[in-house]
Protein backbone atom coordinates (compact mmCIF):
# COMPACT_ATOMS: atom_id res chain seq x y z
CA UNK A 1 0.00 0.00 0.00
CA UNK A 2 1.45 3.40 -0.94
CA UNK A 3 2.33 5.55 2.03
CA UNK A 4 0.23 8.47 0.85
CA UNK A 5 -2.90 6.33 1.14
CA UNK A 6 -2.28 5.60 4.81
CA UNK A 7 -3.18 9.06 6.11
CA UNK A 8 -6.61 9.41 4.42
CA UNK A 9 -7.43 5.88 5.54
CA UNK A 10 -6.50 6.65 9.13
CA UNK A 11 -8.49 9.91 9.01
CA UNK A 12 -11.53 8.03 7.67
CA UNK A 13 -11.18 5.41 10.39
CA UNK A 14 -10.79 8.21 12.95
CA UNK A 15 -14.05 9.79 11.75
CA UNK A 16 -15.86 6.45 12.12
CA UNK A 17 -14.42 5.87 15.60
CA UNK A 18 -15.10 9.49 16.57
CA UNK A 19 -18.75 9.22 15.62
CA UNK A 20 -18.97 5.98 17.64
CA UNK A 21 -17.45 7.73 20.65
CA UNK A 22 -19.63 10.85 20.34
CA UNK A 23 -22.89 8.96 19.92
CA UNK A 24 -22.12 6.56 22.74
CA UNK A 25 -24.11 7.05 25.90
CA UNK A 26 -23.60 5.04 29.03
CA UNK A 27 -26.25 2.45 29.83
CA UNK A 28 -28.32 2.97 32.93
CA UNK A 29 -30.07 -0.42 32.96
CA UNK A 30 -28.95 -3.88 31.89
CA UNK A 31 -30.13 -5.15 28.49
CA UNK A 32 -32.67 -8.01 28.77
CA UNK A 33 -30.22 -10.80 27.90
CA UNK A 34 -27.69 -9.60 30.49
CA UNK A 35 -30.44 -9.25 33.08
CA UNK A 36 -31.54 -12.82 32.42
CA UNK A 37 -27.95 -14.08 32.80
CA UNK A 38 -27.36 -12.11 36.02
CA UNK A 39 -30.63 -13.47 37.46
CA UNK A 40 -30.24 -17.05 36.25
CA UNK A 41 -26.58 -17.86 36.93
CA UNK A 42 -26.66 -17.53 40.76
CA UNK A 43 -30.15 -19.10 41.03
CA UNK A 44 -29.94 -21.95 38.53
CA UNK A 45 -26.22 -22.76 38.42
CA UNK A 46 -25.24 -21.74 41.97
CA UNK A 47 -22.17 -19.85 40.75
CA UNK A 48 -21.54 -16.36 42.23
CA UNK A 49 -19.37 -15.33 39.26
CA UNK A 50 -21.83 -14.70 36.42
CA UNK A 51 -19.12 -14.56 33.74
CA UNK A 52 -17.83 -18.03 34.66
CA UNK A 53 -21.42 -19.28 34.66
CA UNK A 54 -21.87 -18.00 31.10
CA UNK A 55 -18.51 -19.32 29.88
CA UNK A 56 -18.78 -22.78 31.46
CA UNK A 57 -22.47 -23.48 31.07
CA UNK A 58 -24.58 -21.39 28.68
CA UNK A 59 -21.69 -20.84 26.27
CA UNK A 60 -19.58 -23.84 27.30
CA UNK A 61 -19.74 -25.33 23.80
CA UNK A 62 -18.21 -22.11 22.53
CA UNK A 63 -15.49 -22.38 25.18
CA UNK A 64 -14.77 -25.93 24.04
CA UNK A 65 -14.37 -24.65 20.48
CA UNK A 66 -12.02 -21.97 21.74
CA UNK A 67 -9.80 -24.54 23.42
CA UNK A 68 -9.83 -26.43 20.13
CA UNK A 69 -8.54 -23.26 18.43
CA UNK A 70 -5.72 -23.06 20.98
CA UNK A 71 -4.88 -26.71 20.30
CA UNK A 72 -4.84 -25.98 16.57
CA UNK A 73 -2.45 -23.07 17.15
CA UNK A 74 -0.17 -25.23 19.30
CA UNK A 75 -0.10 -27.76 16.46
CA UNK A 76 0.42 -25.01 13.85
CA UNK A 77 3.29 -23.38 15.75
CA UNK A 78 4.77 -26.86 16.17
CA UNK A 79 4.48 -27.40 12.42
CA UNK A 80 6.19 -24.06 11.69
CA UNK A 81 8.92 -24.19 14.31
CA UNK A 82 9.17 -27.81 15.47
CA UNK A 83 11.01 -29.35 12.53
CA UNK A 84 13.94 -26.94 12.48
CA UNK A 85 17.40 -28.48 12.76
CA UNK A 86 18.92 -27.46 16.06
CA UNK A 87 22.68 -27.52 15.43
CA UNK A 88 23.16 -26.42 11.83
CA UNK A 89 23.73 -22.79 12.83
CA UNK A 90 26.71 -22.42 15.16
CA UNK A 91 26.28 -18.63 15.41
CA UNK A 92 22.85 -19.08 16.89
CA UNK A 93 23.93 -21.51 19.64
CA UNK A 94 26.95 -19.40 20.49
CA UNK A 95 24.84 -16.30 20.85
CA UNK A 96 22.41 -18.03 23.19
CA UNK A 97 25.27 -19.31 25.30
CA UNK A 98 27.02 -15.92 25.35
CA UNK A 99 24.13 -14.19 27.12
CA UNK A 100 23.21 -16.41 30.08
CA UNK A 101 20.31 -15.29 32.29
CA UNK A 102 21.49 -13.01 35.06
CA UNK A 103 21.90 -14.08 38.68
CA UNK A 104 18.75 -12.19 39.68
CA UNK A 105 16.61 -13.90 37.03
CA UNK A 106 17.89 -17.37 37.92
CA UNK A 107 17.42 -17.08 41.69
CA UNK A 108 14.23 -15.07 41.30
CA UNK A 109 12.80 -17.92 39.23
CA UNK A 110 13.66 -20.42 41.99
CA UNK A 111 11.55 -18.44 44.44
CA UNK A 112 8.77 -17.34 42.08
CA UNK A 113 7.98 -20.55 40.17
CA UNK A 114 6.33 -22.39 43.11
CA UNK A 115 4.42 -19.26 44.11
CA UNK A 116 3.19 -18.62 40.58
CA UNK A 117 2.13 -22.27 40.28
CA UNK A 118 0.20 -21.99 43.55
CA UNK A 119 -1.44 -18.77 42.38
CA UNK A 120 -2.44 -20.47 39.11
CA UNK A 121 -4.08 -23.31 41.06
CA UNK A 122 -5.90 -20.76 43.24
CA UNK A 123 -7.22 -18.86 40.22
CA UNK A 124 -8.38 -22.07 38.54
CA UNK A 125 -10.30 -23.53 41.51
CA UNK A 126 -11.87 -20.19 42.52
CA UNK A 127 -13.16 -19.43 39.03
CA UNK A 128 -16.81 -19.81 40.06
CA UNK A 129 -16.41 -17.65 43.20
CA UNK A 130 -14.38 -14.65 42.07
CA UNK A 131 -12.48 -13.25 39.12
CA UNK A 132 -10.59 -16.06 37.40
CA UNK A 133 -11.24 -19.45 35.89
CA UNK A 134 -9.67 -22.01 33.60
CA UNK A 135 -8.33 -19.68 30.90
CA UNK A 136 -6.82 -17.16 33.30
CA UNK A 137 -5.33 -19.80 35.59
CA UNK A 138 -3.98 -21.76 32.62
CA UNK A 139 -2.30 -18.61 31.31
CA UNK A 140 -0.67 -18.00 34.72
CA UNK A 141 0.51 -21.64 34.81
CA UNK A 142 2.06 -21.20 31.37
CA UNK A 143 3.81 -18.03 32.59
CA UNK A 144 5.51 -20.35 35.11
CA UNK A 145 6.91 -22.36 32.17
CA UNK A 146 7.91 -19.12 30.45
CA UNK A 147 9.86 -18.06 33.55
CA UNK A 148 11.64 -21.45 33.61
CA UNK A 149 12.49 -21.16 29.91
CA UNK A 150 13.93 -17.67 30.44
CA UNK A 151 15.81 -18.45 33.63
CA UNK A 152 17.19 -21.93 32.97
CA UNK A 153 18.87 -22.50 29.60
CA UNK A 154 19.08 -26.25 30.31
CA UNK A 155 15.32 -26.54 30.93
CA UNK A 156 13.46 -28.44 28.19
CA UNK A 157 9.68 -28.32 27.82
CA UNK A 158 8.39 -31.91 27.95
CA UNK A 159 6.17 -31.97 24.87
CA UNK A 160 5.16 -35.65 25.11
CA UNK A 161 3.91 -35.41 28.70
CA UNK A 162 2.19 -32.10 28.06
CA UNK A 163 0.31 -33.48 25.07
CA UNK A 164 -0.79 -36.56 27.05
CA UNK A 165 -2.09 -34.35 29.87
CA UNK A 166 -3.74 -31.98 27.41
CA UNK A 167 -5.54 -34.77 25.55
CA UNK A 168 -6.66 -36.31 28.84
CA UNK A 169 -8.07 -32.98 30.05
CA UNK A 170 -9.86 -32.49 26.72
CA UNK A 171 -11.32 -36.01 26.92
CA UNK A 172 -12.56 -35.39 30.48
CA UNK A 173 -14.22 -32.11 29.43
CA UNK A 174 -16.09 -33.90 26.63
CA UNK A 175 -17.04 -36.76 28.99
CA UNK A 176 -18.43 -34.23 31.49
CA UNK A 177 -20.34 -32.68 28.60
CA UNK A 178 -21.84 -36.03 27.59
CA UNK A 179 -22.71 -36.72 31.24
CA UNK A 180 -24.62 -33.43 31.10
CA UNK A 181 -26.72 -34.79 28.21
CA UNK A 182 -27.47 -38.04 30.07
CA UNK A 183 -28.04 -36.80 33.64
CA UNK A 184 -29.00 -33.12 33.27
CA UNK A 185 -30.33 -30.56 30.80
CA UNK A 186 -27.85 -30.78 27.95
CA UNK A 187 -24.26 -30.85 26.72
CA UNK A 188 -21.88 -29.47 29.39
CA UNK A 189 -24.72 -28.77 31.85
CA UNK A 190 -23.12 -28.31 35.29
CA UNK A 191 -26.07 -29.69 37.27
CA UNK A 192 -24.90 -33.31 37.07
CA UNK A 193 -23.47 -32.78 40.56
CA UNK A 194 -25.32 -31.22 43.53
CA UNK A 195 -25.12 -27.44 43.53
CA UNK A 196 -24.06 -27.40 47.20
CA UNK A 197 -23.88 -24.37 49.45
CA UNK A 198 -23.86 -21.08 47.53
CA UNK A 199 -20.40 -19.47 47.64
CA UNK A 200 -18.52 -22.53 48.98
CA UNK A 201 -15.42 -23.89 47.21
CA UNK A 202 -17.16 -27.18 46.35
CA UNK A 203 -20.36 -25.81 44.88
CA UNK A 204 -21.94 -24.89 41.54
CA UNK A 205 -22.11 -28.51 40.36
CA UNK A 206 -19.53 -29.45 37.75
CA UNK A 207 -18.21 -25.91 37.16
CA UNK A 208 -15.11 -26.28 39.42
CA UNK A 209 -14.28 -29.62 37.74
CA UNK A 210 -14.71 -28.14 34.27
CA UNK A 211 -12.59 -25.19 35.35
CA UNK A 212 -9.76 -27.46 36.53
CA UNK A 213 -9.76 -29.50 33.30
CA UNK A 214 -9.95 -26.33 31.23
CA UNK A 215 -7.08 -24.81 33.20
CA UNK A 216 -4.95 -27.94 32.68
CA UNK A 217 -5.72 -27.97 28.95
CA UNK A 218 -5.05 -24.26 28.41
CA UNK A 219 -1.90 -24.39 30.55
CA UNK A 220 -0.53 -27.33 28.55
CA UNK A 221 -1.37 -25.76 25.19
CA UNK A 222 0.23 -22.42 26.07
CA UNK A 223 3.28 -24.22 27.51
CA UNK A 224 3.68 -26.15 24.25
CA UNK A 225 3.47 -22.86 22.28
CA UNK A 226 6.10 -21.26 24.56
CA UNK A 227 8.30 -24.35 24.29
CA UNK A 228 8.16 -24.30 20.49
CA UNK A 229 9.40 -20.71 20.45
CA UNK A 230 12.52 -21.48 22.48
CA UNK A 231 13.89 -24.18 20.12
Amino acid at each position, binding site marked *: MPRAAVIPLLVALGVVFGSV*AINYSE*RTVLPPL*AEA*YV*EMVPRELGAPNVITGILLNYRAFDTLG*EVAVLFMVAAGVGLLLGGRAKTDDPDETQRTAAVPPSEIVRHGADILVPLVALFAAYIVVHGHLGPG*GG*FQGGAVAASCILLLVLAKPEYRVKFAQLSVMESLAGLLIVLLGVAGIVFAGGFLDNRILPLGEFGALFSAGAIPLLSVFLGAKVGCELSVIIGRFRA
Partner: protein
Amino acid sequence: MISQTVLVTGLLLMLVGVWGMLTQRNILRIVIGFALMGTGSHIVIVAVGYVAGGTAPIVDGPVTVANAAARAVDPVPSALAVTAIVIGLAVIAVMLAFAIRLYEAKKTLSIDAFADSKW
Protein backbone atom coordinates in the same frame (compact mmCIF):
# COMPACT_ATOMS: atom_id res chain seq x y z
CA MET B 1 -18.70 9.10 31.87
CA ILE B 2 -16.02 6.66 32.97
CA SER B 3 -16.94 4.18 30.24
CA GLN B 4 -16.78 6.99 27.65
CA THR B 5 -13.17 7.68 28.66
CA VAL B 6 -12.33 3.98 28.47
CA LEU B 7 -14.08 3.70 25.09
CA VAL B 8 -12.09 6.63 23.64
CA THR B 9 -8.84 5.12 24.99
CA GLY B 10 -9.65 1.81 23.34
CA LEU B 11 -10.53 3.44 20.01
CA LEU B 12 -7.29 5.48 20.08
CA LEU B 13 -5.28 2.32 20.77
CA MET B 14 -6.97 0.68 17.77
CA LEU B 15 -6.03 3.67 15.60
CA VAL B 16 -2.41 3.52 16.79
CA GLY B 17 -2.41 -0.20 16.03
CA VAL B 18 -3.74 0.27 12.48
CA TRP B 19 -1.21 3.07 11.89
CA GLY B 20 1.59 0.80 13.10
CA MET B 21 0.48 -2.10 10.89
CA LEU B 22 0.27 0.11 7.78
CA THR B 23 3.46 2.20 8.17
CA GLN B 24 6.04 0.03 9.91
CA ARG B 25 8.42 -2.05 7.79
CA ASN B 26 9.68 -4.34 10.53
CA ILE B 27 7.62 -7.52 10.90
CA LEU B 28 7.86 -7.47 14.71
CA ARG B 29 6.57 -3.91 14.79
CA ILE B 30 3.66 -4.94 12.56
CA VAL B 31 2.86 -7.72 15.04
CA ILE B 32 3.02 -5.17 17.87
CA GLY B 33 0.62 -2.94 15.90
CA PHE B 34 -1.74 -5.89 15.55
CA ALA B 35 -1.51 -6.61 19.28
CA LEU B 36 -2.29 -2.94 20.08
CA MET B 37 -5.31 -3.03 17.81
CA GLY B 38 -6.52 -6.22 19.49
CA THR B 39 -6.01 -4.78 22.97
CA GLY B 40 -7.88 -1.63 21.95
CA SER B 41 -10.83 -3.67 20.72
CA HIS B 42 -10.92 -5.65 23.99
CA ILE B 43 -11.04 -2.37 25.91
CA VAL B 44 -13.88 -1.14 23.66
CA ILE B 45 -15.82 -4.39 24.16
CA VAL B 46 -15.54 -4.16 27.94
CA ALA B 47 -16.36 -0.42 27.94
CA VAL B 48 -19.67 -0.84 26.08
CA GLY B 49 -20.78 -3.37 28.72
CA TYR B 50 -20.56 -0.82 31.51
CA VAL B 51 -23.75 0.20 33.29
CA ALA B 52 -23.70 3.51 35.20
CA GLY B 53 -22.80 2.88 38.83
CA GLY B 54 -22.45 -0.86 38.25
CA THR B 55 -19.83 -3.23 39.60
CA ALA B 56 -18.39 -6.61 38.55
CA PRO B 57 -21.12 -9.23 37.97
CA ILE B 58 -19.91 -11.39 40.87
CA VAL B 59 -22.27 -12.11 43.76
CA ASP B 60 -20.13 -11.10 46.72
CA GLY B 61 -20.14 -8.28 49.28
CA PRO B 62 -22.58 -5.53 48.29
CA VAL B 63 -23.95 -7.53 45.33
CA THR B 64 -26.50 -10.12 46.48
CA VAL B 65 -28.58 -12.58 44.49
CA ALA B 66 -31.62 -10.32 44.98
CA ASN B 67 -30.09 -7.00 43.85
CA ALA B 68 -27.61 -8.37 41.29
CA ALA B 69 -29.64 -7.16 38.30
CA ALA B 70 -29.59 -3.59 39.63
CA ARG B 71 -25.91 -3.46 40.64
CA ALA B 72 -24.00 -5.57 38.10
CA VAL B 73 -22.57 -4.49 34.76
CA ASP B 74 -23.34 -6.44 31.57
CA PRO B 75 -21.53 -9.82 31.85
CA VAL B 76 -21.89 -10.72 28.15
CA PRO B 77 -19.18 -8.36 26.75
CA SER B 78 -16.81 -9.54 29.49
CA ALA B 79 -17.40 -13.17 28.53
CA LEU B 80 -16.84 -12.26 24.86
CA ALA B 81 -13.65 -10.38 25.74
CA VAL B 82 -12.23 -13.59 27.26
CA THR B 83 -12.87 -15.33 23.93
CA ALA B 84 -11.35 -12.42 22.00
CA ILE B 85 -8.21 -12.36 24.16
CA VAL B 86 -7.60 -16.09 23.65
CA ILE B 87 -8.10 -15.89 19.89
CA GLY B 88 -5.90 -12.77 19.73
CA LEU B 89 -3.14 -14.60 21.56
CA ALA B 90 -3.48 -17.53 19.16
CA VAL B 91 -3.20 -15.28 16.09
CA ILE B 92 -0.17 -13.44 17.50
CA ALA B 93 1.54 -16.76 18.30
CA VAL B 94 1.12 -17.89 14.67
CA MET B 95 2.30 -14.47 13.40
CA LEU B 96 5.46 -14.66 15.52
CA ALA B 97 6.12 -18.22 14.34
CA PHE B 98 5.87 -16.99 10.74
CA ALA B 99 8.17 -14.07 11.61
CA ILE B 100 10.80 -16.54 12.84
CA ARG B 101 10.53 -18.60 9.65
CA LEU B 102 10.70 -15.48 7.46
CA TYR B 103 13.79 -14.32 9.36
CA GLU B 104 15.41 -17.71 8.77
CA ALA B 105 14.63 -17.49 5.06
CA LYS B 106 16.08 -14.01 4.38
CA LYS B 107 17.99 -13.17 7.61
CA THR B 108 16.07 -9.91 7.85
CA LEU B 109 12.81 -8.81 9.45
CA SER B 110 12.05 -6.02 6.97
CA ILE B 111 8.98 -6.76 4.86
CA ASP B 112 10.63 -4.94 1.93
CA ALA B 113 12.78 -8.06 1.49
CA PHE B 114 9.70 -10.20 0.90
CA ALA B 115 8.42 -8.79 -2.39
CA ASP B 116 8.82 -12.02 -4.41
CA SER B 117 5.17 -12.89 -4.72
CA LYS B 118 4.01 -9.33 -5.31
CA TRP B 119 1.62 -9.07 -8.28
